């Protein structure tokens, strides 16, 4: 018997809890799944993909036994197709659009097929990068942030012949791929393996542990490089505006996930039994589900509205329920109880007023907890951005991803181009790279 990580949970069980949520398809399964695809023309799934991957073509290639060709088709539009295959909410993207839904109520397993193809290429023993660089342009672009937006932008810029410096605040690349996505979506250190693959194009230098800000102001980068791309995501978190900061046992869900992504054993050893997560988005769901998987026996997720209003998809919500996360809906946090250590959260029962506004019913109740995780949204950390125009918490950009300062571009979560999803960040990075290329060519 393995030494327990915490009472009732040994290392083997912990590893099992965090194994692939969608296990990879074997060759035979992939062929069978690919055979379901009708090879649509001008396919609805492709239209639903933010990066417009030619899905019928890549699936057709899988069915003919050409998985590497399939991967090339995927990666040509989405260089982080491997992460997207694992993390995209396909149930509201490509798979929702799949014509098979209308025909027989089930979509083609596009996400898993995409993973099958990309893994085939990334895992193959030869390290030939599938794309090549254009003739060198002699131009140098600074990319801030090595998250999906920054990486996609850097890769495309390199393909277009430019030299790229990436400046990344953290010690590892990948952004939320490395520090934010649920661990059971990104097993086997995939985020790092993928970044290594992306860098295989060449001419991309990553400088770690350097933050945009006082020691490296935007103005200086603008001078040292021919253009700048900002892909810094949303590194701040919204506050509940209660007394949360003064108590032990109240943590931002994102920092909790960041800790567990880096050392799940340590977090499993210390996580208390009663965990309360506040929020209704995917971050809240991820925090709650992972708390359960780490061994917390009593995990509750509280949201101030109903399931229909949650930004987490149905699939994510069901995942929480399947993992025995209790859901308390129509409850708004009002007060956190405890001396040094949190003991409980007092909620107010809410409902919808006649005008559709959320109103309090006056009813109050409390939920005891040893750890409270807040997941009520991330926000832009704009202090480092200097004079750049920011509106409604996002960097203002034009149709061509250019900020208010010429030569400085931005994309991903720090801008408002679409939903805050990995795949959208990749599309932004890719399109911004083309805009930068056009800008550099004058």
């Amino acid at each position, binding site marked *: 018997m393995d030494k327990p990580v915490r009472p009732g949970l040994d290392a083997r069980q912990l590893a099992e809890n965090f194994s692939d949520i969608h296990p990879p398809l074997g060759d035979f399964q992939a062929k069978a799944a690919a055979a379901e695809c*009708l090879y649509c023309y*001008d396919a609805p799934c492709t239209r639903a993909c933010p990066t417009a991957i030619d899905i019928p073509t890549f699936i057709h290639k899988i*069915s003919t036994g050409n998985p590497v060709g399939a991967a090339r088709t995927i990666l040509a539009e989405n260089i982080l197709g491997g992460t997207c295959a694992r993390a995209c909410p396909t149930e509201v993207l490509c798979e929702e659009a799949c*014509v098979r839904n*209308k025909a027989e109520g089930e979509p083609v397993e596009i996400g898993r097929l995409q993973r099958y193809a990309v893994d085939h290429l990334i895992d193959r023993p030869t390290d030939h990068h599938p794309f090549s660089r254009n003739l060198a342009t002699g131009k140098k672009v600074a990319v801030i942030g090595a998250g999906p937006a920054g990486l996609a932008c850097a890769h495309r810029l390199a393909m277009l012949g430019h030299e790229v410096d990436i400046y990344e605040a953290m010690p590892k690349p990948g952004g939320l791929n490395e520090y934010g996505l649920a661990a059971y979506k990104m097993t086997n250190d995939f985020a790092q393996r993928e970044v290594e693959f992306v860098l295989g194009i060449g001419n991309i230098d990553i400088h770690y542990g350097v933050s945009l800000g006082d020691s490296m102001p935007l103005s200086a980068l603008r001078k040292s490089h021919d253009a700048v791309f900002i892909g810094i995501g949303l590194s701040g978190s919204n506050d509940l505006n209660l007394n949360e900061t003064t108590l032990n046992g109240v943590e931002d869900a994102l920092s909790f996930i960041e800790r567990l992504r880096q050392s799940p054993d340590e977090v499993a050893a210390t996580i208390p039994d009663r965990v309360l997560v506040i929020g209704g988005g995917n971050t809240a769901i991820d925090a709650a589900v992972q708390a359960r998987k780490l061994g917390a026996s009593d995990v509750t997720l509280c949201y101030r509205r109903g399931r229909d209003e949650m930004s987490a998809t149905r699939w994510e919500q069901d995942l929480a329920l399947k993992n025995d996360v209790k859901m308390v809906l129509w409850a708004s946090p009002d007060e956190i109880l405890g001396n040094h250590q949190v003991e409980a959260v007092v909620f107010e029962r809410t409902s919808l007023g006649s005008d559709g506004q959320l109103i309090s019913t006056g009813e109050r109740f409390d939920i005891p907890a040893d750890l409270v995780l807040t997941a009520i949204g991330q926000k832009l950390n704009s202090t480092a951005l200097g004079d750049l125009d920011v509106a409604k918490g996002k960097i203002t950009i034009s149709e061509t991803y250019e900020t208010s300062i010429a030569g400085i571009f931005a994309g991903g979560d720090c801008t408002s181009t679409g939903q805050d999803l990995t795949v959208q960040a990749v599309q932004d990075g890719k399109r911004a790279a083309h805009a930068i290329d056009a800008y550099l060519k004058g």
Partner: protein
Amino acid sequence: MADLGCTIAGIESINPFWLASAPPTDKKYNVERAFQAGWGGVVWKTLGADPPVINVTSRYGAHHDATRGLIGINNIELISDRPLKTNLDEIRATRKEWPDRVIIGSMMAPVEKEAWQSLAVQIAEAGVHGLELNLGCPHGMCERGMGSAIGQVPEMVEQTTAWVKEVVNIPVFTKLTPNITNILWSAEAAAQGKADAVALINTVNSIISVDLDTMAPEPTVDGRGTHGGYCGAAVKPIALNMIAEIARAPETQSLDISGIGGITNWRDAAEFISLGANAVQVCTAAMLFGFRIVDDMIDGLSGWMDTQGYRQVADFTGAAVKNVVDWNDLNMNYDLKARIDPEKCIECGRCFIACEDTSHQAITITEQTDGHRRFDVVDEECVGCNLCYHVCPVPGCIEMEAVDTDRPYMTWPEHPLNPVKDAG
């Protein structure tokens, strides 16, 4: 309940489903299992004079579809590789134990009268209901002057048939090869030789695949391969045409036909019979799924016959032959238009791209305000080719509708635009 009993070349069978001469009928053990499963008869694996042949390994190649379903297989096996006496003893014993089932003896020999006649007599004496002359095997045996080497020369087809007819008084089936230019020449030759029936098709000569690592055709025997006989679902269309040709040609019409080639279920069998087969034989489907498939063949066919009001097999035997005509007899004034049902359409776009790239640019896509796409047929452009109807994955979504042209039945020879129109 419909009666599945049928008669072919004067032989009565409890149902029209026989196993073709091949591994499934190689020995008593298999044949008994087949009879237990419900098969009406078997054509025993082809017998030759001793010493028996020796086979190689491997022997079968495969033609898979995308989901590893088998479209067809090919083989490079020879005839029975067991001593003649062993086979004849087993035939005798099986005949005794299964008196209501048909056993046909299949045979082949080099083109020598004595060889054909002595073998035919020996097999007939074992008590078979009839003899089938294997003039079709397209691999191996043909290199020894047998099988398709005979079947491809009409004079030899007639000759061997006549030799056998001379010495036996049981029905003789001449089994034809599809590896010829015109099946009627072989069938006419069989009729000239006084065959009671023709059986067709034997396998289609083929190379089924190439192993791209070893650069050798498959099945591969120690790094090399040879052409073999292709059979299974893929060959059904070839067989149906040849049977229809024989059934409608005045010179061959009187021959009974044992239909073979890709029959996999009762529906296939019904099609063969409607085109003039008096009974059918099955090989590949049994090799892929086992003898149990006859269960569905039996109740599928009788169920269908009940719904159609056919009381016995003879009621629809050849029923479709009259509708098989030459192209020149088709109505040039008939007109069909594709109709796409927007309710059933799942918007895959397959009809559009098929017609747009390869047919008549007769389908349009219209973006709807709700983001959906509507597919419509432009009647003026649609030639009624059926392509969209076939590629559409949703049954009943595209229908081909006959439009009333108000014009009379007119064949090409009668057509005003025909430059060589018959003056009379």
